[in-house]
């Protein structure tokens, strides 16, 4: 199952329907809901935290949280 950690920089994915209640309510409130788009903006120099654009919200989260967010990764976003 693909998660945020499988994205490369600049790549986008669509958040899947999954057991969202494993995520903290704060993240849901920032738009981490099924169907929304998530873009990986940047990974911190020491690999952690991870900077994402979640439904227009620019936030940084840790790997431990990012690996819980399941995505459908759109292949065409990698095209030039």
């Amino acid at each position, binding site marked *: 199952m693909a998660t945020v950690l499988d994205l490369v920089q600049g790549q986008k994915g669509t958040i899947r329907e999954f057991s969202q*209640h494993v995520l903290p309510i704060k993240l*849901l409130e920032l738009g981490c809901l099924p169907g929304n788009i998530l873009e990986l903006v940047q990974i911190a120099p020491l690999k952690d935290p991870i900077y994402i654009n979640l439904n227009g919200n620019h936030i*940084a*989260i840790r790997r431990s949280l990012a690996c819980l967010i399941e995505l459908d990764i759109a292949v065409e976003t990698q095209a030039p």
Partner: protein
Amino acid sequence: MSESINVALIGNPNTGKSSIFNQLTGLNQKVGNYPGITVEKKEGYCKLPGGKRAKLLDLPGIYSLSTTSMDERLVTELLLDKKNKNHPDLAVVITEVENLKRNLYLFTQIKDLGIPTILLINMADRMSRKGISLDIGALEKKLGTKIVLASSRKGQGLERLKELMAEGTAHCAAPFLDIHRISPDYFGALKKEFPGEDPYRLWLAASQDATFQGVDYQKLEALESRFIKSGEELKKLQHRETVLRYQGINDTLKGTYSIDLEKAHGARASIDKILTHKVFGYLIFFAILLLIFQAIFEWSSYPMDFIDGQFAQASAWIKDNFPAGVFTDLLAEGIVAGIGGIVIFIPQIAFLFLFISLLEESGYMSRVVFLMDRLMRPFGLSGKSVVPLISGNACAIPAIMATRTIENWKERLITILVTPFTTCSARLPVYLILIALVIPEEGSILGFSYQALTLLGLYLLGTGAALISAKILDKLLKLKGRTVFMLEMPAYRMPLLKNVGYTVWDKTKSFVLGAGKIILAISIVLWFLGSHGSSDDFDRAEEIVTQRIGEQGFGANSKILMEQRLEALKEDAQTQGLSQGQIMDSLPHWNAALTDNAMAQEIAGHKLEYSYIGQAGRAIEPLVRPLGYDWKIGIALITSFAAREVFVGTLATIYSVGSEDEEPIKQRMANDRNQAGEPLFTLATGVSLMLFYAFAMQCMSTLAIVQRETNSWKWPLLQFVFMTILAYIAAFAAYQILS
């Protein structure tokens, strides 16, 4: 008395809420990009059209009413407690045009609490640049609220806001969401059991980890246990609420709000690529830190020298022109010297807060958190502790207050406990004077002088002590804490010079009026204790010293001083073009003056030694002698427990008591000799003192703030004991090794 209504400003962080508060009330307040910079509850008054008045409350920036942080708990508890005197009659929810969707989430929650609400959409000046279009009329209808389009940067829309505020509680208070849709069974039962109560209010009381006044908890919990069997189930309901809210918001925004994603992307991504780059990111951060230290140490020395000279002149002028007596002494040696000791540090404080507020205003501070998070984690901290720790380099008091944004209590407590190790501005005066005394002025490495490098070393030492203590506390403290790290990366903004100016002014003012009051009061008390005594030795000082000098000659201290001064006089004469013969003629005259002067100083020294303060200083001397200190430093240590910077003021008072010229204090310290005739401030003593000040908890104000923020005396007392013991051991080791 005009009619007054309570208005609360509520909004997400980084929406310009504090800017709007400032403009409405005219009260100065810090505005920053770092999430949650508005930590304190801020109040102010604002005149409204029609002779009414609003009492404005600027609430901390929060994302939602879920109480995971202290800020959120504070806001949610206030909004639920209708009996609280600050409970708003009217809420102004402040949103930002670029992040409207997310900002509206909080708005819908406020609306559901049944509080009359106005929606303010800020940063309207960015709309065309970001390709945003808005249909205000349609949006007002759909949301059932009055909307103000504003720009706090340009001061637009505020008159309209005031007009709307004047309408008071007439604003629509209808809820946004039909709360029963979350769980018809549960909410139906709630309505039946608690008739007349607002169901959303009950739901928050049941689902949030906070104490809400006036709710019958027993009844509520009994009901909850019937419908919600587990924590997981509760979360599912919260999840459902979130989904429903966003559905509602999306429906509302459809056709009323559009944003051109291409234009909206903007410069943030490209700037972030550089500022959070694995090499350049850290290099830039380190360069900024170095620049700050260079500014504090080098640039501020010019105004400081000027201030130093002016106060020395003023003190001398008073002594020359006022009738001799106790009052003149008090004025020249207690008050003027004490004020001088405060004013001199204004340049450094201003420079430091200038940089800190620029970093916060621009949005860069969040990038620092992003870069540093991984580095902080081994110490049991997160990147969120970086900002308090860096702010601690200015003053531990606002820094400890800034820890309120750390959701995790354990992390927050650790940050509070270790922040006083960081090099606050009150340590600077102590460090600067000691560095100037014992570290050579000449010599440099890579263009940075030994003195600047020593200061940098002390900063690193403070940071190191904070981090290592954090690690120890992380192991020792048995507190559970689930960390959810979430950090907003706000868009970069050109800092508003007005806001930066306010910050610098506020901080300087609070130092001068806050810490300054203590410094001045202690300076005066010290002057009194230092110039009065009750023993026979004190009363007959003149007689005793004259007799001693008649029998044994001058002390080593005085002899060196006299020689130095004679050399200085000769050099002066030569540069003025006097001939060798003229100088020889002047010698007896000079010698007589110097002898008189030395006699007066020895008497003053004797008097001080037997004054009230000398007695106290000598009482602790056995305790501090192993650290390389004498009774004078002992006195300064005692007084420093009120505030560190008092050390310098104390020495200034001690050395100027009874003396006749106003030499700068540095020279006095350099000329001081111990009983063996060696300089008192050697490298060993200087380093020992610097280490003592680096580690010791010598600030009553910090202890008071820790007490307030932890709501217990246990933590500040532990902190005090731990830091003092550590300071003693470090100073002892340094002195014994170096001497």
